[in-house]
């Protein structure tokens, strides 16, 4: 693997197609070809394709192939669409092994078995994304370095074989001396950087547009790094938090540092009498919510207590959390995301079933019921059993499904002065059972009180700024590559003639127009677009 020395004296890396300095065609196969030169990457040696020895080189070469990169992107796109056929696991409310088969039959079952229910979190999907990232890094490195070197090493005077095989090329047989000065002037006016050697000219502008794609890739990689940061503990928090009215709860993932008190939850509807403009719409829709709001107080823990001990809290601020108006503190945002109402108290009166005479009311706090309620004059009620979320279990015994008071039920023991033994009664919503025979007394249901529970989402995303930065750099790269062109015009003396050749990475029409203005007021022949000429000849025009 030797380096190649060109006749101009420049030493090129092995695999170079066009000499970096003078542009002479070095590749043997290319040499005898009369077609236009392939100017991609300046004919530089993409080294990956020339060294293929160790396993490291082989891995490197695999990822440095644009073909591989494009396939990776296509495969990722195709598989991404698979995940949109059926709802993903996070959007269903049944266990996935039940849901898919029940809803979609054999196809659903297959979908689940193939693991497509959690496609975007699967290891192989992540691996695909990661491989695109690796391909991006290696492809870019493998091209930007040789391209940079080639553009830096280029000399003003170019080899004839390089010039006459450029797409835009023309020869002036009998040039006039003064024309060169005119061109130079014009080129300066068009903001070209003009270099001169032995009377030859190289005018170049917009070289930095060549770096656009690479800047763009750097942005993408920063973006991917930002997405990766989310996996680091503490960088990304997305948790639910339910706080009842009047209660204080610790904000999750803050290291038990912050506490949130919910003073009040407010639900407001549009009033069709007040908002006359929307009267029709409101009538049509029934009721339309105007506002979900929680009035909260944020506290910071100042004591060094252990979990389970009562913390000492310092008030930081009061805030009204509304939809899209989160409470922000120390990188965290607390959003209003949901609400529900929960039973708070249930009230009964102890009454005589026949006469209806009442002997006092019992107000039961469903979160913390008392064991005995003394009503005076010898009347009292004892709770023998409390089932906050009542159901009959498998054995037909009363039990509770959860700790939440969704469906409270009680076994009461009623002590009255006229009975020697207390009477027992089982009371659930719309249901009374008297297990030991007919009672004289009953617990007559009076009413319930509810309270609201606000549902919050606690979010923190420290990776967001990295992602935004990646996005900005990405866009800079796109603009750099899209709105500027890298144009070069060679004006060179060969055999007493003046040869003009030009190259641009895009917008050939613009370049040709520019050359016309540059050559204005001179006798020089306007160079032709050889590719266009070829095409026209082929078409037989």
């Amino acid at each position, binding site marked *: *693997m030797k380096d190649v020395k060109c006749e101009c004296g420049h030493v090129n890396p092995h695999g170079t197609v066009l000499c970096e300095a003078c542009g002479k065609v070095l590749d043997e196969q290319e040499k005898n070809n009369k077609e236009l030169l392939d100017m991609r990457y300046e004919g530089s040696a993409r*080294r990956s394709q020339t*060294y293929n020895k*160790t396993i*490291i*080189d082989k*891995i*490197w070469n695999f990822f440095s192939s644009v073909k591989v990169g494009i396939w990776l992107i296509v495969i990722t796109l195709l598989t991404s669409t698979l995940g949109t056929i059926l709802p993903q696991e996070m959007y269903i409310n049944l266990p996935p092994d039940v849901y898919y088969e029940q809803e979609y039959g054999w196809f659903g079952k297959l979908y689940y078995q193939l693991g497509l229910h959690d496609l975007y*979190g699967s*290891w192989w999907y*992540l*691996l695909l994304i*990661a491989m695109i*990232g*690796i391909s991006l*890094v*290696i492809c870019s*490195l493998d091209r930007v370095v040789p391209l940079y070197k080639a553009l830096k090493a280029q000399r003003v005077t170019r080899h004839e074989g390089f010039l006459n095989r450029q797409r835009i090329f023309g020869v002036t047989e009998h040039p006039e001396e003064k024309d060169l000065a005119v061109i130079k002037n014009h080129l300066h006016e068009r903001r070209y950087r003009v270099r001169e050697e032995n009377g030859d000219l190289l005018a170049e502008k917009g070289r930095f547009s060549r770096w656009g794609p690479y800047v763009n890739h750097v942005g993408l990689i920063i973006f991917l*790094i930002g997405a*990766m940061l989310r*996996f*680091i503990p503490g960088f990304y928090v997305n948790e639910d938090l339910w706080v009842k009215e009047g209660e204080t*709860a*610790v904000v*999750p993932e803050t290291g*038990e540092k912050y506490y949130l008190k919910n003073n009040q939850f407010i639900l407001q509807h549009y009033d069709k009498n007040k908002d006359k403009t929307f009267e029709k719409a409101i009538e049509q829709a029934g009721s339309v919510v105007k506002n979900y709001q929680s009035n909260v107080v944020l506290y910071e823990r100042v004591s060094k*207590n*252990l*979990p*389970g*001990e009562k913390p000492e809290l310092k008030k930081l601020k009061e805030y009204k959390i509304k939809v899209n108006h989160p409470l922000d503190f120390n990188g965290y945002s607390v959003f209003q995301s949901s609400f529900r109402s929960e039973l708070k108290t249930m009230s009964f009166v102890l009454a005589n079933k026949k006469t209806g005479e009442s002997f006092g009311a019992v107000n039961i706090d*469903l*979160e*913390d*019921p*008392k*064991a005995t309620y003394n009503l005076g004059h010898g009347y009292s009620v004892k*709770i*023998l*059993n*409390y089932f*906050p*979320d009542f159901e009959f*279990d498998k054995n037909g015994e009363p*039990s*509770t*499904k*959860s*700790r939440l008071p969704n469906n409270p039920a009680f076994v009461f023991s009623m002590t009255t002065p006229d009975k020697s033994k207390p009477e027992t009664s089982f009371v659930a919503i719309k249901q009374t059972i008297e297990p030991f025979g007919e009672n004289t007394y009953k617990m007559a249901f009076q009413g319930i009180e509810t309270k609201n529970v606000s549902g919050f989402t606690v979010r923190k995303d420290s990776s967001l700024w990295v992602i935004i930065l990646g996005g900005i750099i990405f866009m800079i790269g796109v603009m750099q590559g899209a709105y500027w062109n890298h144009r070069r015009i060679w004006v060179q003396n060969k055999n007493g003639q003046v040869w003009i050749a030009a190259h641009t990475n895009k917008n050939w029409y613009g370049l040709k127009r520019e050359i016309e203005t540059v050559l204005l007021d001179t006798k020089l022949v306007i160079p032709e677009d050889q590719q266009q000429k070829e095409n026209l000849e082929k078409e037989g025009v």
Partner: protein
Amino acid sequence: MKKRRLVIRTLILVILGAAVAYSLYSNLTKDSKQKVAVGDTAPDFALVDMQGNKHRLSEYRGQGVFLNFWGTWCPPCKKEMPYINNQYLQYKDKGVQVLSVDIQEPELAVNQFAERLGLKFPIMIDTEKEVMNVYGIDLLPATFLVDKNGKVVKYYTGELTENKVKEFMEQIKP
């Protein structure tokens, strides 16, 4: 020159590979990640039991602690309680303490439950779910075994048999 290229390429591939491996690993383990893992020092806490006595975990250094999280509404919890009670009576003089933490339930429910089953070990209510959060408890019942040095030796979720309880007690006996 060639050697340098190999070194640079290896370096870049290693860095990229490490980043990918880390992402994959953290993504795949994020669901099963335990806040308190075996080998960790069990996080200290202090709760007051139904009799009004304060229990602080770190005060039980030198003894094994059978730390059980439960709720009256959870059927397997109900089933395993008598076994724990029996073994507690066997092992309390051999240096194994049982601390049983109910998650946020009314005192009445817990007291009635303990009375009905005749439970003798200290029972405390985690009213603010703080201890539950610190231990990252998801499913009940959950049992942590803490040895005499305060280290977690086992984490177990699900119903226990009497033999299992005995085996656990044996494991943390100082």
